[in-house]
Protein backbone atom coordinates (compact mmCIF):
# COMPACT_ATOMS: atom_id res chain seq x y z
CA UNK A 1 0.00 0.00 0.00
CA UNK A 2 2.82 2.40 0.99
CA UNK A 3 4.66 1.54 -2.22
CA UNK A 4 1.56 2.23 -4.24
CA UNK A 5 1.07 5.61 -2.57
CA UNK A 6 4.74 6.54 -3.03
CA UNK A 7 4.55 5.58 -6.70
CA UNK A 8 1.40 7.62 -7.15
CA UNK A 9 2.97 10.60 -5.41
CA UNK A 10 6.07 10.28 -7.57
CA UNK A 11 4.00 10.19 -10.73
CA UNK A 12 1.97 13.20 -9.64
CA UNK A 13 5.12 15.13 -8.81
CA UNK A 14 6.70 14.24 -12.16
CA UNK A 15 3.55 15.32 -13.99
CA UNK A 16 3.43 18.57 -12.05
CA UNK A 17 7.09 19.29 -12.73
CA UNK A 18 6.73 18.44 -16.39
CA UNK A 19 3.72 20.73 -16.72
CA UNK A 20 5.63 23.61 -15.14
CA UNK A 21 8.82 23.07 -17.17
CA UNK A 22 7.97 25.52 -20.00
CA UNK A 23 7.03 28.19 -17.48
CA UNK A 24 10.24 27.66 -15.51
CA UNK A 25 12.28 27.66 -18.74
CA UNK A 26 10.73 31.00 -19.73
CA UNK A 27 11.61 32.46 -16.34
CA UNK A 28 15.17 31.22 -16.67
CA UNK A 29 15.69 32.82 -20.09
CA UNK A 30 14.14 36.07 -18.86
CA UNK A 31 16.59 36.10 -16.03
CA UNK A 32 19.50 35.27 -18.37
CA UNK A 33 18.45 38.02 -20.79
CA UNK A 34 18.29 40.57 -17.98
CA UNK A 35 21.96 39.99 -17.29
CA UNK A 36 22.98 40.79 -20.85
CA UNK A 37 24.03 44.23 -22.12
CA UNK A 38 21.04 46.50 -22.46
CA UNK A 39 21.13 46.53 -26.25
CA UNK A 40 20.82 42.74 -26.39
CA UNK A 41 18.20 42.13 -23.74
CA UNK A 42 15.03 42.48 -25.81
CA UNK A 43 16.45 40.78 -28.87
CA UNK A 44 17.70 37.77 -26.95
CA UNK A 45 14.56 37.40 -24.90
CA UNK A 46 12.43 37.27 -28.02
CA UNK A 47 14.90 35.09 -29.89
CA UNK A 48 15.22 32.62 -27.04
CA UNK A 49 11.46 32.56 -26.51
CA UNK A 50 11.16 31.47 -30.14
CA UNK A 51 13.89 28.91 -29.55
CA UNK A 52 11.98 27.45 -26.60
CA UNK A 53 8.86 27.43 -28.73
CA UNK A 54 10.71 25.45 -31.42
CA UNK A 55 12.18 22.98 -28.93
CA UNK A 56 10.10 19.84 -28.58
CA UNK A 57 9.64 18.33 -25.13
CA UNK A 58 9.23 20.07 -21.81
CA UNK A 59 12.44 18.79 -20.32
CA UNK A 60 14.41 19.79 -23.44
CA UNK A 61 13.05 23.32 -23.09
CA UNK A 62 14.37 23.40 -19.57
CA UNK A 63 17.79 22.13 -20.72
CA UNK A 64 17.96 24.79 -23.46
CA UNK A 65 17.11 27.51 -20.94
CA UNK A 66 19.60 26.27 -18.35
CA UNK A 67 22.34 26.10 -20.97
CA UNK A 68 21.68 29.73 -21.98
CA UNK A 69 21.62 30.85 -18.37
CA UNK A 70 24.85 28.99 -17.67
CA UNK A 71 26.65 30.72 -20.55
CA UNK A 72 25.09 34.16 -20.05
CA UNK A 73 28.36 35.90 -19.27
CA UNK A 74 30.01 34.37 -22.32
CA UNK A 75 27.10 35.55 -24.45
CA UNK A 76 27.36 39.03 -22.94
CA UNK A 77 31.07 39.12 -23.68
CA UNK A 78 30.44 38.43 -27.35
CA UNK A 79 28.09 41.34 -27.83
CA UNK A 80 29.10 44.45 -29.75
CA UNK A 81 28.61 46.54 -26.64
CA UNK A 82 30.93 44.33 -24.63
CA UNK A 83 33.56 44.44 -27.34
CA UNK A 84 33.48 48.21 -27.27
CA UNK A 85 33.53 48.42 -23.51
CA UNK A 86 36.68 47.84 -21.53
CA UNK A 87 34.65 46.92 -18.48
CA UNK A 88 32.49 43.79 -18.46
CA UNK A 89 29.02 44.89 -19.38
CA UNK A 90 27.54 43.08 -16.43
CA UNK A 91 29.39 45.58 -14.31
CA UNK A 92 28.68 48.70 -16.33
CA UNK A 93 25.02 47.96 -15.84
CA UNK A 94 25.50 47.85 -12.12
CA UNK A 95 27.85 50.74 -11.65
CA UNK A 96 25.73 53.80 -11.60
CA UNK A 97 28.11 56.10 -9.77
CA UNK A 98 30.90 54.50 -11.69
CA UNK A 99 33.90 56.27 -10.28
CA UNK A 100 33.12 55.64 -6.70
CA UNK A 101 32.01 52.07 -7.17
CA UNK A 102 35.04 51.20 -9.23
CA UNK A 103 37.28 52.31 -6.42
CA UNK A 104 35.19 50.50 -3.92
CA UNK A 105 35.54 47.26 -5.83
CA UNK A 106 39.22 47.71 -6.46
CA UNK A 107 39.86 48.59 -2.88
CA UNK A 108 37.78 45.71 -1.67
CA UNK A 109 39.71 43.31 -3.85
CA UNK A 110 42.97 44.63 -2.53
CA UNK A 111 42.01 44.38 1.09
CA UNK A 112 40.82 40.85 0.51
CA UNK A 113 44.23 40.14 -0.96
CA UNK A 114 42.57 39.01 -4.14
CA UNK A 115 44.24 41.41 -6.56
CA UNK A 116 47.83 40.41 -6.69
CA UNK A 117 48.85 42.52 -9.66
CA UNK A 118 47.29 45.84 -8.79
CA UNK A 119 50.59 47.68 -8.91
CA UNK A 120 51.33 46.37 -12.38
CA UNK A 121 47.91 47.40 -13.52
CA UNK A 122 48.36 50.85 -12.07
CA UNK A 123 51.36 51.37 -14.30
CA UNK A 124 49.35 50.64 -17.39
CA UNK A 125 46.23 52.48 -16.43
CA UNK A 126 47.34 55.95 -17.54
CA UNK A 127 48.18 54.53 -20.93
CA UNK A 128 44.87 52.76 -20.93
CA UNK A 129 42.95 55.93 -20.18
CA UNK A 130 44.58 57.54 -23.20
CA UNK A 131 43.05 55.06 -25.62
CA UNK A 132 39.58 55.20 -24.15
CA UNK A 133 37.17 58.05 -23.95
CA UNK A 134 37.33 57.94 -20.18
CA UNK A 135 38.72 61.01 -18.53
CA UNK A 136 41.36 60.57 -15.92
CA UNK A 137 39.60 59.74 -12.76
CA UNK A 138 39.71 62.68 -10.43
CA UNK A 139 41.98 62.35 -7.46
CA UNK A 140 42.81 58.74 -8.22
CA UNK A 141 45.05 59.01 -11.22
CA UNK A 142 46.74 55.71 -10.65
CA UNK A 143 43.65 53.60 -10.55
CA UNK A 144 41.21 53.10 -13.37
CA UNK A 145 38.84 50.78 -15.01
CA UNK A 146 41.58 48.40 -16.02
CA UNK A 147 41.97 47.45 -12.39
CA UNK A 148 38.33 46.67 -12.26
CA UNK A 149 38.50 44.45 -15.32
CA UNK A 150 41.25 42.48 -13.71
CA UNK A 151 39.46 42.36 -10.41
CA UNK A 152 36.30 41.07 -11.96
CA UNK A 153 37.82 38.60 -14.36
CA UNK A 154 37.62 35.87 -11.77
CA UNK A 155 34.18 36.94 -10.64
CA UNK A 156 32.20 36.63 -13.80
CA UNK A 157 29.58 34.55 -12.13
CA UNK A 158 28.76 37.10 -9.46
CA UNK A 159 25.17 38.12 -9.77
CA UNK A 160 24.09 41.75 -9.95
CA UNK A 161 22.55 41.51 -6.51
CA UNK A 162 25.73 40.12 -5.06
CA UNK A 163 27.72 43.03 -6.48
CA UNK A 164 25.20 45.48 -5.15
CA UNK A 165 25.32 43.96 -1.71
CA UNK A 166 29.12 43.99 -1.79
CA UNK A 167 29.14 47.64 -2.78
CA UNK A 168 26.48 48.55 -0.21
CA UNK A 169 28.30 46.74 2.53
CA UNK A 170 31.55 48.41 1.65
CA UNK A 171 30.02 51.86 1.62
CA UNK A 172 28.67 51.30 5.07
CA UNK A 173 32.12 50.27 6.19
CA UNK A 174 33.45 53.71 5.28
CA UNK A 175 35.39 52.75 2.23
CA UNK A 176 37.43 55.97 2.25
CA UNK A 177 39.65 54.35 4.82
CA UNK A 178 40.52 51.69 2.29
CA UNK A 179 40.89 54.13 -0.54
CA UNK A 180 43.34 56.13 1.49
CA UNK A 181 45.37 53.03 2.13
CA UNK A 182 45.20 52.10 -1.51
CA UNK A 183 46.27 55.55 -2.60
CA UNK A 184 49.37 55.24 -0.49
CA UNK A 185 50.63 52.29 -2.51
Amino acid at each position, binding site marked *: MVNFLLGLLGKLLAAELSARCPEIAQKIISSAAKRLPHSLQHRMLEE*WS*ALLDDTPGDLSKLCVAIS*LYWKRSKIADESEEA*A*ESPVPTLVTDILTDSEEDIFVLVALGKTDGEISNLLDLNRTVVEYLKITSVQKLSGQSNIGRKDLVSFLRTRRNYSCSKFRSVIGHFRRARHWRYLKRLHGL
Partner: protein
Amino acid sequence: MGKTNKPEMPRLSYQGLLVLRVFLDHPRKELCGADLMKLTDLSSGTLYPILLRFERYGMLESDWEDMAPEEVGRPRRRLYKITRHGAQIARQLLANVNKPWSPAIPSPVLAEG
Protein backbone atom coordinates in the same frame (compact mmCIF):
# COMPACT_ATOMS: atom_id res chain seq x y z
CA MET B 1 33.30 49.86 -35.95
CA GLY B 2 35.91 52.21 -34.64
CA LYS B 3 38.02 49.55 -32.98
CA THR B 4 41.71 49.85 -33.34
CA ASN B 5 42.94 46.59 -31.96
CA LYS B 6 40.30 44.13 -33.15
CA PRO B 7 41.78 41.24 -35.11
CA GLU B 8 40.24 40.62 -38.51
CA MET B 9 39.56 36.98 -37.80
CA PRO B 10 37.44 35.87 -34.90
CA ARG B 11 38.64 33.41 -32.33
CA LEU B 12 37.75 29.99 -33.68
CA SER B 13 36.96 26.71 -32.05
CA TYR B 14 35.88 23.35 -33.36
CA GLN B 15 32.30 24.33 -32.61
CA GLY B 16 32.76 27.55 -34.54
CA LEU B 17 33.95 25.60 -37.55
CA LEU B 18 30.90 23.38 -37.27
CA VAL B 19 28.64 26.41 -37.45
CA LEU B 20 30.52 27.77 -40.46
CA ARG B 21 30.30 24.38 -42.18
CA VAL B 22 26.52 24.38 -41.77
CA PHE B 23 26.25 27.86 -43.24
CA LEU B 24 28.47 26.91 -46.16
CA ASP B 25 26.30 23.88 -46.80
CA HIS B 26 23.24 26.18 -46.84
CA PRO B 27 24.64 29.42 -48.25
CA ARG B 28 21.34 30.94 -49.30
CA LYS B 29 19.26 29.63 -46.48
CA GLU B 30 18.30 31.65 -43.44
CA LEU B 31 18.62 29.51 -40.34
CA CYS B 32 17.16 30.08 -36.89
CA GLY B 33 18.70 29.00 -33.58
CA ALA B 34 16.70 25.78 -33.42
CA ASP B 35 17.79 24.78 -36.96
CA LEU B 36 21.39 25.43 -36.10
CA MET B 37 21.20 23.46 -32.88
CA LYS B 38 19.77 20.54 -34.80
CA LEU B 39 22.30 20.72 -37.61
CA THR B 40 25.38 21.25 -35.46
CA ASP B 41 24.30 19.25 -32.44
CA LEU B 42 25.52 22.09 -30.22
CA SER B 43 23.83 23.21 -27.04
CA SER B 44 22.14 26.60 -26.94
CA GLY B 45 24.73 27.98 -24.54
CA THR B 46 27.53 27.03 -26.90
CA LEU B 47 25.80 28.15 -30.07
CA TYR B 48 24.77 31.70 -29.13
CA PRO B 49 28.19 33.08 -28.19
CA ILE B 50 29.46 31.76 -31.54
CA LEU B 51 26.60 33.35 -33.48
CA LEU B 52 27.10 36.70 -31.77
CA ARG B 53 30.85 36.57 -32.35
CA PHE B 54 30.48 35.83 -36.06
CA GLU B 55 27.86 38.52 -36.37
CA ARG B 56 30.15 41.02 -34.70
CA TYR B 57 32.85 40.19 -37.23
CA GLY B 58 30.44 40.64 -40.12
CA MET B 59 30.56 36.96 -41.06
CA LEU B 60 26.89 36.43 -40.31
CA GLU B 61 23.93 38.73 -40.52
CA SER B 62 20.61 38.26 -38.82
CA ASP B 63 17.13 39.64 -39.02
CA TRP B 64 13.71 38.90 -37.59
CA GLU B 65 11.45 36.69 -39.64
CA ASP B 66 8.84 38.60 -41.52
CA MET B 67 5.69 38.00 -39.51
CA ALA B 68 3.62 39.51 -36.74
CA PRO B 69 3.81 37.46 -33.53
CA GLU B 70 0.21 38.35 -32.63
CA GLU B 71 -1.08 36.83 -35.88
CA VAL B 72 0.88 33.61 -35.66
CA GLY B 73 0.67 33.26 -31.90
CA ARG B 74 4.34 32.60 -31.32
CA PRO B 75 7.48 34.72 -30.85
CA ARG B 76 9.44 35.80 -33.91
CA ARG B 77 12.50 33.80 -34.86
CA ARG B 78 15.79 35.49 -35.54
CA LEU B 79 17.18 34.21 -38.83
CA TYR B 80 20.89 34.01 -39.54
CA LYS B 81 22.57 34.06 -42.92
CA ILE B 82 26.20 33.92 -43.92
CA THR B 83 27.58 37.05 -45.59
CA ARG B 84 29.82 37.01 -48.64
CA HIS B 85 32.75 38.04 -46.46
CA GLY B 86 31.85 35.29 -43.99
CA ALA B 87 31.64 32.66 -46.70
CA GLN B 88 35.03 33.70 -48.00
CA ILE B 89 36.66 33.42 -44.57
CA ALA B 90 34.84 30.18 -43.82
CA ARG B 91 36.00 28.55 -47.06
CA GLN B 92 39.54 29.64 -46.38
CA LEU B 93 39.48 28.34 -42.82
CA LEU B 94 37.89 25.03 -43.68
CA ALA B 95 40.31 24.53 -46.56
CA ASN B 96 43.19 25.01 -44.11
CA VAL B 97 41.66 22.52 -41.71
CA ASN B 98 41.20 19.92 -44.45
CA LYS B 99 44.72 20.35 -45.81
CA PRO B 100 46.90 17.29 -45.16
CA TRP B 101 49.36 17.99 -42.39
CA SER B 102 53.00 18.43 -43.27
CA PRO B 103 55.77 19.45 -40.89
CA ALA B 104 57.05 22.99 -41.38
CA ILE B 105 60.65 21.93 -40.74
CA PRO B 106 61.80 18.90 -42.72
CA SER B 107 63.04 16.03 -40.66
CA PRO B 108 66.88 15.99 -40.66
CA VAL B 109 66.87 12.26 -41.32
CA LEU B 110 64.64 12.63 -44.36
CA ALA B 111 66.55 15.68 -45.55
CA GLU B 112 69.84 13.80 -45.39
CA GLY B 113 68.41 10.82 -47.20
